[in-house]
């Protein structure tokens, strides 16, 4: 546990972290970011962007090719045992709880993390309640659905959290109602002073949960800021979404369209709000010509900024497969 670091006590900091796999793939390229105690920090990016590679280096499962990763006064690269003590980690894959009752798994994980029995049991009961897991409280993991298992995994790593909680796609498979409950618990982690490093594809949900976020693409950090700052340059803009009819080419965009990207069959465009009427006329003509099936006009969101930055949609279902970078894809 050596290695003093600049910055306030408890500050997590990645400095110029670069990871090049033996097969030559540069999964992370000079990534620098910091997470303050109590801050919920989102890592957004398409599949293979390098998000999971980055968090695996934080927890000591991978070693950076160069760069520093520190938490308070601890050098997490030099001392992976300290990393495991200070950080708790929910990986993308399900936690191995087939033989455990849901509450039992949460309590046992808290105890393994060094928690006092009474405090861990009390907190486990709070989490079971808060995530609406009561009906599965004593049910073995082997009989739980993927979404419930995911929630139990979340409770396992947060029942006795380290100073930094790393969550890799925590809402995968979770139903919409319990997603809200989970995000509320993520917020509460921050309120209790725990830093949260959150890897997600789900831009719309992340927008509400995070204090700050970074967008990573091709291993590089390409944007960072608060959700408001990230979409500031879209202020006064609207999103006009056109669903292209099967078998038809994407129609040419009129000059007032500021930005356009094709996501699946959806042509996502950003227009000035003063061009709303012209945009609707253009969309209706496309539908009339049979080129498009429907359109939607809405306020721009963080997702539009994200699409502009990466050219990918941040919605679940579009690219929900995770980084899966065990072989170096990162």
């Amino acid at each position, binding site marked *: 546990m050596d290695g003093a670091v600049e910055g306030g006590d408890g500050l997590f900091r990645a400095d110029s972290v670069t990871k090049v796999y033996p097969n030559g793939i540069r999964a992370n390229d000079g990534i620098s970011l910091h997470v303050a105690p109590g801050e919920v920090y989102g890592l957004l990016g398409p599949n293979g962007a390098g998000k999971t590679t980055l968090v*695996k280096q934080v927890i000591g499962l991978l070693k950076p090719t160069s760069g520093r990763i520190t938490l308070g006064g601890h050098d997490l690269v030099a001392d*992976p045992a300290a990393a495991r003590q200070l950080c708790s980690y*929910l990986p993308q894959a399900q936690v191995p709880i087939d*033989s*455990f009752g849901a509450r039992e798994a949460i309590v046992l994980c808290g105890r*393994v993390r*060094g928690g006092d029995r009474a405090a861990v049991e009390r907190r486990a009961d709070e989490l079971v309640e808060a995530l609406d897991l009561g009906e599965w409280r004593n049910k073995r993991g082997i009989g739980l659905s993927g979404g419930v298992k995911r929630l139990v995994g979340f409770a396992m790593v947060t029942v006795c959290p380290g100073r930094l909680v790393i969550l890799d796609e925590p809402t995968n498979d979770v139903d919409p109602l319990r997603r809200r409950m989970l995000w509320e618990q993520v917020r509460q982690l921050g309120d209790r002073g725990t830093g949260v490093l959150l890897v997600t594809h789900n831009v719309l949900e992340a927008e509400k949960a995070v204090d700050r976020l970074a967008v990573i693409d091709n291993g590089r950090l390409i944007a960072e800021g608060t959700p408001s700052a990230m979409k500031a340059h879209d202020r006064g803009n609207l999103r006009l979404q056109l669903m292209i009819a099967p078998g038809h080419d994407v129609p040419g965009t009129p000059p007032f369209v500021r930005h356009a990207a094709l996501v699946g069959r959806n042509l996502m465009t950003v227009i000035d709000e003063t061009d709303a009427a012209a945009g609707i006329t253009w969309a209706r003509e496309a539908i009339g010509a049979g080129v498009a099936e429907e359109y939607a006009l809405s306020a721009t969101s963080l997702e539009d900024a994200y699409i502009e930055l990466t050219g990918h949609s941040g919605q679940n279902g579009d690219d929900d497969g995770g980084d899966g970078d065990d072989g170096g894809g990162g």
Partner: protein
Amino acid sequence: MAAWARSYRRMVAWDLADLRLYLPVLSAVLVLQGAGFVLGIGLLFSNMPESAALFLTTGAPVMNLVTAGLIFEPQLVAEQRIRGSYEFIQSLPVPRSASALAWYSVAQVIALPAVILTLLTGVVRYHLHLAVTPVIVPAVVLTCLTGVLIGLAVAHGVTAPMVANLVSVVMIFVMTGFSPVAFPASQLPGWLQTANQWLPFGSMAAIVRSALTNGALTNGALTTSVPRAYLVVGVWAVAAALVVAWAQGRRR
């Protein structure tokens, strides 16, 4: 030290809970292995000579002790790797040594009923008289611990799950068919006798058998002394522990 002991206790609780659906099955498999081997080999003889029966009966429990560590852990870790949960386990804030010793304790618990039932089967079936000495305790502990450490070395050192499973199965074949565990070393060709002076399984059998027969039997003629057998097994335990430490400490 207190933190280490706490981690050890909690990982024992974790392992026992993790295996609770399978513990009775694993123990039953070992009983079948040991007692089945003792009874099955007997079918080859109309009247098995007492010396052969004693060799067989005192060797089969060694197979139980080794198999518990050598087969189960690589299979469990292989399954964790396939399911993707290996990294979650590796991220828990537990000293690796506490985690390894916790698994040894569980393996010992799984193996012990099989060891006792295998011995009882041989004693009853062949009307044997064993002269068990207190040295049986360190002999059993060292044998099981070494089997566990070799199993852990394979489990964590070989990252391809299928290859890890194959390596552990091959080692079991070597133990069963090509090591002086259930038969005397003198039955083996010279080069295998020499090889088994350095492989762990014959030496494991020598120390357990010696403790079960008050030193009357080791692993047959042309082999080395019991103290040397302890040394060989001890060296394998240390070497395997070093491989485990290296494999768990390495980061790509």
